[in-house]
């Protein structure tokens, strides 16, 4: 419903009025002030994008990890530029040593609880939450994964009525592999994996799909002798998106990490 001219005009004037408050003491003017948790040690606001995404300069790293204000800003930055899944997984594996622990807790709690749960399931299914943390971090480096989100207008993949109605192509640039998930003409949910045979002629692949449903994970071993692989993921109908639209697809070379 659109606002009328009067409402718009009054709304704008109200917004610009600095000294009114509906139920609290008036704010007289706007004396320059800082966040109540800000300290003189905090890095400038403008340095956060570079500091979070790359590296902090001049010894800021230690301060940012311990400062509640800076941790809130790190979380706010991630709301704009989300951390990659490796970072979240690294936090899940060893949260005590994660440098922005408070920020990650805040970010995951406020922004992406579904991704957190999916990643936890994935790591758990791989046993990465039980083995020594350093070993788990090393294993993590050998896995390439992506989160995909199915269109919201189709909340449940199993309800797809038309052939090829669901089609989601996931590309793993580092491996030159793409995975397409779709429902074929007979109504079976399938995934097609396209890979450059000449590059991986002697290697075995694994693909892991993890969502919010049951069972928690689907795994597929793929022979290197074919260029395109099609496999039925009927169980993944529930597996992937029983309760949501997001799932995590991981691909790796060699044997499945156990």
């Amino acid at each position, binding site marked *: 419903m659109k606002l009328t001219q009067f409402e718009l005009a009054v709304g704008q004037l109200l917004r610009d009025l600095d000294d009114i*408050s*509906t139920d609290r003491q008036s704010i007289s003017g706007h004396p320059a*002030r800082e966040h109540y948790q800000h300290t003189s040690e905090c890095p400038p606001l403008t340095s956060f994008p570079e500091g979070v995404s790359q590296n902090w300069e001049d010894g800021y790293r230690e301060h940012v990890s311990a400062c509640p204000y800076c941790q809130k800003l790190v979380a706010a930055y991630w709301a704009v530029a989300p951390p990659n899944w490796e970072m979240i997984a690294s936090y899940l594996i060893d949260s005590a040593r994660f440098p922005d622990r408070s920020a990650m807790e805040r970010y995951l709690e406020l922004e992406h609880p579904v991704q957190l749960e999916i990643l936890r399931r994935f790591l758990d299914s791989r046993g990465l939450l039980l083995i020594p943390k350093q070993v788990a971090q090393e294993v993590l480096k050998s896995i390439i994964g992506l989160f995909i989100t199915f269109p919201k207008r189709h909340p449940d993949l199993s309800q797809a009525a038309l052939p090829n109605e669901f089609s989601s192509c996931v590309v793993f640039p580092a491996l030159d592999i793409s995975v397409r998930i779709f429902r074929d003409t007979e109504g079976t949910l399938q995934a097609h994996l396209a890979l450059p045979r000449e590059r991986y002629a002697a290697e075995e692949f694994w693909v892991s799909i993890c969502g919010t449903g049951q069972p928690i994970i689907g795994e597929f071993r793929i022979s290197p002798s074919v260029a395109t692989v099609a496999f039925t993921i009927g169980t993944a109908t529930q597996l992937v998106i029983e309760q949501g639209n997001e799932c995590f697809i991981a691909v790796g070379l060699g044997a499945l990490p156990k």
Partner: protein
Amino acid sequence: MTEDLEDDAVLMERYYAGENVAFDGIRLRYFGRIVGWARKAGIPDADVDDIAAESLLHVVCTKGFGNRFDPAKGRFQAWIWMIARHCILDWFRRNGRFVPMPEDQGDECILHPAGAEPDLPTRLSEAELKSALRHCYRLLGELDARIVYHRWVLELHYKEIARLLGSTESVVTNRLHNAKRRLGKCIEQYLATPGRGAQGAAAQ
């Protein structure tokens, strides 16, 4: 804001050009202002500073992630307001006090029958109108003032406002309708009072 202060648009231009220190001017001017916006929206004092800091960080991030401020498209204050509003609405969502509405409900005709719409005098300056509004808005009372703010400033739907205030949609609808009528009448009377209007605003 006094005239000797550098224009917000110029500060943003300098910041976008790589002069990070120019952003301090924006931060100092708008932190308190965003805190005020968040308070007026009914967000608890414990969280208003976070919203102001998040909003300013979002402004910082426009340098690298697009949606930069463009003075050709409007005033800086309107632009930063949209960013702050987004953060305010996010707070409501996070705290489970927000009901996203799919589409308009189409009840405009019930609220605003033809000819019932009050008007703001166009001959007056912004300062004069603000003076009148400041006076009349305070007379609305806390609940009506909040409803007006949620609807006309935050542009929330009636159902959302009802949820936030723990009330019903019809109560919100009726109170807003009455508040608008009272506000329009009050502004008219305030400006007609001798010593107010142009002179009154200038004196404040």
